[in-house]
């Protein structure tokens, strides 16, 4: 399906959840779809989200510690953010929600889901962090220069070039530093995973879509994609190519098609 979504500007609103003033971007009508951004931060409304907002009420918060949201005192580890997401869903009274997370956000979504899937109809994990396969080398994202990071994130050279050409104004630099702090807080050690998560993934009883970029240079699709799929009771795995760590950007149409058919399939069952 071609992407014919008009460029819709989302509504920006702040909600205070568990003492954390949180920026939430919202747009669209339909069943709720909650999107949790990755370590680079949120706050951007990209075309692929706009397309999903044609059929869903898309809700995209900036997670605690990131962007324009607060960094509350309790913001110390991934479990804090997982419980926050459950509190946020309760505060916004989301029911039957599709929850989708990318990278760090995928890890948060999985941590939230092992605690409760009560308000979730389905889960989509896009190149999620959170698990560790022993003996598989991963690059050290905290030692990468901005240029190395751009090259590692994207497979498409045009996206690399666009990332490198980006000029940060003062406010953007402040946000980038804040996001980097938040990412380190959650991911530094153990490096981007929770050694206990694997034991409890069987609790995620809702249908789950696992999406990976075949050329992901940050978290390699082989073996991570199959590893996740093997641990989730109701997993569907889609590896999209060519794509780096963000298939929702690099293969936006294929990604949206996969997600929409996953949602259609899991709700008609």
């Amino acid at each position, binding site marked *: 399906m071609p992407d014919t979504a008009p460029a819709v500007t989302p509504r920006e609103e702040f909600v205070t959840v568990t003492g954390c003033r949180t920026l939430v971007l919202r747009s669209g009508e339909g069943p709720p779809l909650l999107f949790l951004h990755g370590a680079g931060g949120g706050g951007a409304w990209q075309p692929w989200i706009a397309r999903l907002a044609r059929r869903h009420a898309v809700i995209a918060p900036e997670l605690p510690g990131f962007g324009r949201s607060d960094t509350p005192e309790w913001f110390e580890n991934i479990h804090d953010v997982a419980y926050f997401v459950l509190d946020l869903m309760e505060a916004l009274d989301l029911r039957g929600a599709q929850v989708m997370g990318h990278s760090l956000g995928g890890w948060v979504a999985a941590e939230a889901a092992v605690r409760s899937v009560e308000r979730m109809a389905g889960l989509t994990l896009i190149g999620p962090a959170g698990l560790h396969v022993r003996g598989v080398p991963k690059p050290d994202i*905290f030692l990468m220069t901005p240029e190395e990071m751009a090259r590692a994130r994207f497979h498409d050279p045009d996206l690399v070039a666009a990332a490198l050409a980006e000029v940060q104004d003062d406010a953007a630099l*402040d946000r980038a*530093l*804040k996001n980097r*702090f938040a990412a*380190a807080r959650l991911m*530094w050690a153990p490096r981007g995973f929770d050694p206990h998560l694997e034991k409890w993934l069987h609790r995620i009883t809702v249908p789950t879509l696992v999406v990976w970029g075949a050329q992901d240079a940050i978290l390699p699709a082989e073996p991570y994609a199959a590893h996740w799929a093997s641990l989730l009771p109701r997993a569907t795995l889609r590896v999209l190519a060519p794509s780096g760590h963000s298939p929702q950007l690099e293969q936006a149409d294929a990604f949206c098609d996969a997600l929409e058919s996953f949602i259609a399939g899991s709700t008609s069952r």
Partner: protein
Amino acid sequence: MRFFFFHLMPYADLDPDYDRLHKSSWVTLPNAYYDPVKGADLYHRYLDELEYAAALGFEGVGVNEHHQNAYGLMPCPNVFAGMLARRMAPEAKICILGRALPVLANPLSIAEEYAVLDNVTRGRIIAGFVRGIGAEYHSLAVNPTESHGRFHEAHDLILAAWTRPGPFTWDGKYYHFPHVNLWPRAYQQPHPPVWIPSQGSRETIEFAADPSRRYVYLQTAAPAATLFRTMQSYRDEAGRHGYRASPDQLGWSIKIYVAETDAIARAEAKPHIESFANKFLRMPQEMLLPPGYTSPASMKALMLSRRTITGSHRTMEQMIEQGTFVCGAPRTVIDQLAEYQQRGGFNIVMAGLHFGTLPHALTMKNIEIFAKDVMPALRDALPPTEVARGAAAE
């Protein structure tokens, strides 16, 4: 002026061309570059140099802590202090500058090690506490966003272990001990002197100058302008708390090379101080400044001024000009140190008389001329009672 000899113990045999393949001599430089046979010789040589300085009348010697790098081969400074404790001239002090508290797993074991050294030396140790530089957080996989919190709590725990009668319970945020009960107790009472080496952050100066601590603040690796500013900040901070900071609360850690004449000094020092600055200190910003290591405001400022440590090639002449290196005949060095003391108001000089690839013979000559021709001339030198604020502002 009081003089200490400080050694970094770099891996001086490092292949200088390593930087064609690797970004830094820290964290990820393959340890295939290290030859244990050469390293063993270096360790013995460096310990000889420290012992020689102690014999020539320095008030003490200094060692420090860095991990997984070619810049400084002392991941365990208390081991070095232990090796020196029974070999050195009996009056000389040993400064451990310092233990990197947040990156070490158990602060109570640091309290113990220091207490042992304090007993064996009968109170000749000076206990340094640092957070470690950013690279340490990469090397030891400790979360840099907890650096300040862990530093303060580990410090408080160690001081309590030294001064409060045990056993007692420690209920901290990061550390929990049902039984804190130090054996041996510290020899010096109430506890060993604490020195705080720092690159000059506001938070650290406030911490050291607090009237409950009054720790010696030691400015490291900074241009003279920064030195004058941080020394003044410490005095201002003391003033805000209603006390006057003594010059003995302020120190300067500085690389120095002294020789027969200015020309000889510059010719002999140049390749070695430049190897220090450009090879051993080489570090990309991501390694030096992990997220959370400093406040976002300081981080931004440091990112903008990063040339001082990680930028382009630095020459000896630039370093002399900046005041990060003092070099020349005894008269030149005496005059320069005296002038800096007048403007900075410090009374402690932590002299880095070895740097980079400086060979043993030149290091020994440097130590000897410094001890015989520089130190006596400045032994009684004191900063003015009132350091002119104009000097500090320059």
